[in-house]
Structure formats: C-alpha cells, structure tokens
C-alpha cells in the first residue's frame, strides 16, 4: 500500500428512490492502492453505492471526492474510474481486441498504438495472443472475465470498481479467479473497490472490508478484525455458521443463557446493555474429556458430522439447540454419532455483541 492518502472520500452519501432510502448516510475513506470490498446481502444498497461512485447514478445527498475534488456532478464517462459489471457487459458483436481497445478508441488513439496496448493487457490478464481477433461470444466464462478486466484496465483508471463479477460462475473457476484478481491487484497497484454478497470471497482478496445492511455501513475493518470482533449479530452471522447464544447479564459478571439453561462466562462488555449475544466460532469449540478443561462447558449429544475437506464439522444437540464444532481432520473426534459429549470454549475465544 502507498501512503495513507485517501484517494476516495465518501461523505454522508445518500440515495433516495421515491420513498425508499437505498443508501443512508454512508461515510468512508478509501486509501490509495487498497483492495476494499463492500459486503452485504441483496438490497443492502451496495450496488447503488458503487454506481454512485462510478458516476452512473447521482447521489441525492452527501459528497463524493476523488483526490480531493468533488465529483458528484461529473458524469461516468469523464471520471477516471472504470467498472466491471456483474454481467460483464462485453460488446457481444465485437472481437476481444475491439472490446479491449474501446476506451482508447473513444479517446482517438491511433490503431497501431491501441493494438499494442491491447496486446500488453492481454498478457497481463493471461489471454493468448491469438484471441485478439476472436469473437467474444466464442469465449468461455473465465476468458470473458479476463476480457472484461483487460477492457477496464485499458482505460487506465485511478480506481477500478467490481460489481459482483464472480457471482454467476461455478465454484472451481471462482476460486481460481479470486486468486488471480488479488494477484492482478498487486501487479497493477491500482485501487480496487469490490462488491460481493459473500464475506468468504471478500476475505480472500481484501485489504479492508465494509459491511452494509439496509443502506447503512455497519462495520469497516480488516478481514481479521471483522472476523474476530464483529460489532453485532448481523455481522457475526454473515460469516456462515457460528454459534450465537442469546444472553442476559446477571449479577456476578456472568450471563444467563436461556436456551442452554445455564450461566456462562463472557468477555467484559463495553456497553451497558442488559442483553446481547455471545458468539463462539465453531473452530473455537472443543471436545472436552473433563469440564474443567475450558472456561465454559455444555453437555450434549453428537447429532451428525460433516466432512469438509481439511476440516470436519460436528453438530451437537444441547436441549433444543444445535451447537457447531469444527475441527481439523487430524484432530477429529474419535467417537460415534449419538455419543454423549462435553464441549466447551474459553472466554477469550468468544465475543459479546449487540443487536
């Protein structure tokens, strides 16, 4: 990363459609050269926000500053930014080369120069040279992605925007492209702003992540911070399977958990609310031989186990609740289904969150 100069400043940006507030008072600074991902479920406003940054929509309130200049009224074709669309939006009636060269053609760059630059970019995105004259309709999904990338890079933007470009691709290819995107980011050194609904995807590629819900930006931080210190239930559950236990503060610094019918020890809480959620990630749960091995323990029975490549996931039934435990394959539980088990975790491996 370069110096910590914000290349993009988003100040109190709002977008209203009729009576609906799609984006509600979002403020954020993007650092030059970082890979920033906005994550949120559909309808959270992330696409609208990105489109406003790209210039395809106009904010109804707030300011957007690019390198210190207010760009609210600058149209998309005049902004030094470029977007890779969800559907890729390749020009189907043109060849790979014509697609890549488009932005240069608009600027009036002569043919030979355009071709040279296109060839360079094709090399960077790892497209074979002879694809130059190939029609884009004959390219595979992964190849089309690369054409879209090269096309956007050709316009030499200050910031590259990505609107969920990988969501329609199958798992294998997607994992591969995630890695390639991160490498591309490193090679080009440009600022990347990415949207996705999958926190997992964001974790792979991003320097920082912002979580949006219902038009609000709820939490911003590095992948590690989001993972270990979620600010609320929504953020913590976004990760996929976690154990979320509703608790109520009790007298002696402990917490009552109704669903487990017991008291639990929890980390110190900074706010004064009476209720909250105790979040324990599956990999922090352990099978105990003796209750004293951990700060908290519960008794239950093993309901089922699920192999997940290098890890194994266990569902343990405790009363009416199901708790999730995850272990590396080498440390797999050695018993059988329907066994009575004791599982537990340490206070330092849990987080107390609000609503």
């Amino acid at each position, binding site marked *: 990363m370069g110096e910590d100069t914000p290349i993009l400043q988003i100040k109190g940006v709002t977008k209203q459609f009729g009576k609906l507030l799609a984006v509600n008072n979002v403020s954020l600074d993007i650092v030059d050269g970082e890979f920033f991902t906005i994550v949120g479920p559909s309808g959270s406003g992330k696409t609208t926000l990105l489109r406003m940054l*790209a*210039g*395809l929509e106009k904010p109804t309130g707030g300011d957007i500053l690019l390198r210190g200049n207010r760009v609210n009224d600058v*149209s*998309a*074709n*005049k902004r030094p*930014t*470029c*977007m890779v*669309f*969800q*559907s890729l*939006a*390749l*020009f*189907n*009636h*043109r*060849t790979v*080369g*014509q697609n890549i060269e*488009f*932005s240069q*053609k*608009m*600027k009036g760059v002569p043919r030979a120069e355009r*071709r040279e630059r296109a060839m360079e970019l094709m090399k960077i995105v790892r497209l074979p040279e002879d694809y*130059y*004259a190939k*029609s884009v309709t004959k390219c595979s999904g992964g190849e089309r992605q690369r054409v879209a990338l090269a*096309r*956007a890079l050709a*316009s030499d933007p200050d910031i590259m925007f990505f609107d969920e470009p990988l969501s329609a691709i199958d798992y294998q290819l997607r994992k591969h492209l995630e890695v390639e995107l991160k490498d591309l980011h490193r090679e080009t050194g440009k600022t990347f702003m990415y949207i996705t609904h999958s926190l997992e995807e964001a974790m792979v590629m991003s320097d920082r992540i912002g979580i949006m819900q219902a038009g609000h930006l709820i939490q911003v931080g590095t992948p590690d911070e989001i993972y270990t210190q979620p600010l609320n239930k929504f953020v913590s559950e976004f990760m996929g399977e976690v154990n979320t236990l509703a608790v109520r503060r009790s007298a002696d610094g402990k917490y009552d958990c109704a669903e487990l019918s017991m008291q639990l020890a929890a980390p110190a809480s900074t706010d004064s609310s009476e209720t909250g959620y105790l979040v324990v990630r599956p990999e922090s749960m352990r099978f105990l031989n003796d209750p004293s091995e951990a700060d908290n323990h519960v008794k239950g029975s093993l309901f089922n186990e699920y192999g997940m490549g290098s890890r194994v996931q266990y569902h343990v039934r405790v009363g009416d609740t199901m708790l999730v435990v995850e272990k590396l394959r080498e440390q797999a539980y050695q018993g059988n289904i329907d066994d009575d088990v004791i599982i537990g975790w340490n206070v330092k491996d849990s987080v107390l969150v609000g609503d």
Partner: protein
Amino acid sequence: MEDRKKRWVHSLIGVWTGVVLLFFFLPIAAVIVSSLSKSRYFRFPMKEWSFKWYDETINANLTENLHLTSVYVAGCVALIALVLGFFGALAFARYDWKGRIFYQRLIMLPIFFPQAVLGLALLLWFTYIGVLPTWEAAVFAHLVWIAPIVTLVISIQVYGFDVSQEEAAYDLGANRWQVFWEVTLPALAPGLFSGGLFAFLLSWGNFSLSTYTTGADSTVTEWLYTKMSSGYTPMIPTMGAFSVYGSVIILFAGYIFLIAHRRRAAKRL
C-alpha cells in the same frame, strides 16, 4: 420400447411437415409451370413450352410501371417502418415506463384487424381529409399494419440486448452519441435488417390495402387480382412467376448479405 415409439412419432412429424411443405410450394410451382406454356389458353399437360410470354411481359410497358410502383411503395414502407419500428421497439422492450404494457397492446391492434375493412376505412379517411389515393397513400396504408409488425421483430432483438453494455461503454469514456453508434445500433442491426426485409416483402405482396388506396397507380398484386377475376390470360402466370422470382431473389440476397456481413465483421480488426 418408449424410445422406438418416440422415433416413430418423430418420423411421422417429419413426414407430415414434408407434406405441408409440398402443399405450400405446389401452387407456386404450378404458377411457374404455367408461365412456360406457349398457348394462349391453359391446358395441362402442356403441349408446348416456351418463354414466349416472358418476352411479351417484359416488353410490355405495363410491366415496368407495375413493378416500379410496387418497388417504390415497398421501399418507402421499409424505410419508414424501420424508423418508426426502431423507436417503437425501444419503447416496447427496452425502457421500463409507466404505461408500457398498455402501449404494447395498443400498438398490436392494427395487426389484428381485417385488412379489407382497414383498407376501406383508410379510403374513407383519405377522402375526408382531402388526400388523393396514390401510391404515396398506399405507403401510409401499408405502414399502419406493417410498422407494428416491424416493431415486434425489432423488439425481439431488443429483448436479448444486455443494457449494461451501454453503461459500460459510457463508463469507458464514450459520449451518448458514441454509445448509440458503437454499441446500440450494431447490436440491434440484425433485428433492423430482418425488420426491414420483412417490411419490404410484406408490402411487396400486399393486396388488400393497396387495392383501396393506390387509386390510379397500380401495384403488381392489384393487376393480378383484376385480371384473375375476369378469367385467364397468359400474362397472369408470367407476372406471377416474376413476382415469385423477385421475392426469392430478395430473400436470398438478404440472406447472403447477412452472412457476408458477419464474415467481414469477424475479419475486421
């Protein structure tokens, strides 16, 4: 078992389609065959074959006039229908706007309309507003039902058009006009081409509307009808044959043009 039965049904369908195709082309073949007869009256099997009547027909002044009129009308209809249909299709399929569904149904109405009644209504209308029936009036009449058809044809192409291509082009630095010229128009070109071809051919072959609105001018179709209603003359089949040749040539020329254009576009770097 199921498979064998299925294949049997499929071959039946194939045979049936063959019969229908034969049925379609039989009268056309009949026209062409009869145009080659030498005698003044029609008799089958034909005793003598010749191109005599082709000669007579080509040389008659009448033929040139008729064909020119038909061509003028069809040409104008095609051009105007393309313009009306292009914008109409954008409203039909591309933009989401309040009233779109109502507009869709409204525009389709002239298609579902008895043409003879439409022709007469237009004649009445022209008389009322003081317009003389001429070939130009026929262009207007044809457009009433052809423009909606062209709108439909182009709309089909528009439905398949990914609108974000336009946004992407804009984002890459194109101004509004460049977006239209470099992205929208080329992407919709196939639909425009088939729409124009359709319009030309539908107008070329139309009778019901022409008959009421051309007035003193006459198209090939009108001439055929008048002559046919009063019995047989050998020029009828020859004119008819010419009409067939014309349609086939135009269709194939269009098809070849389309293929050649695709090849050229692929070669262009």
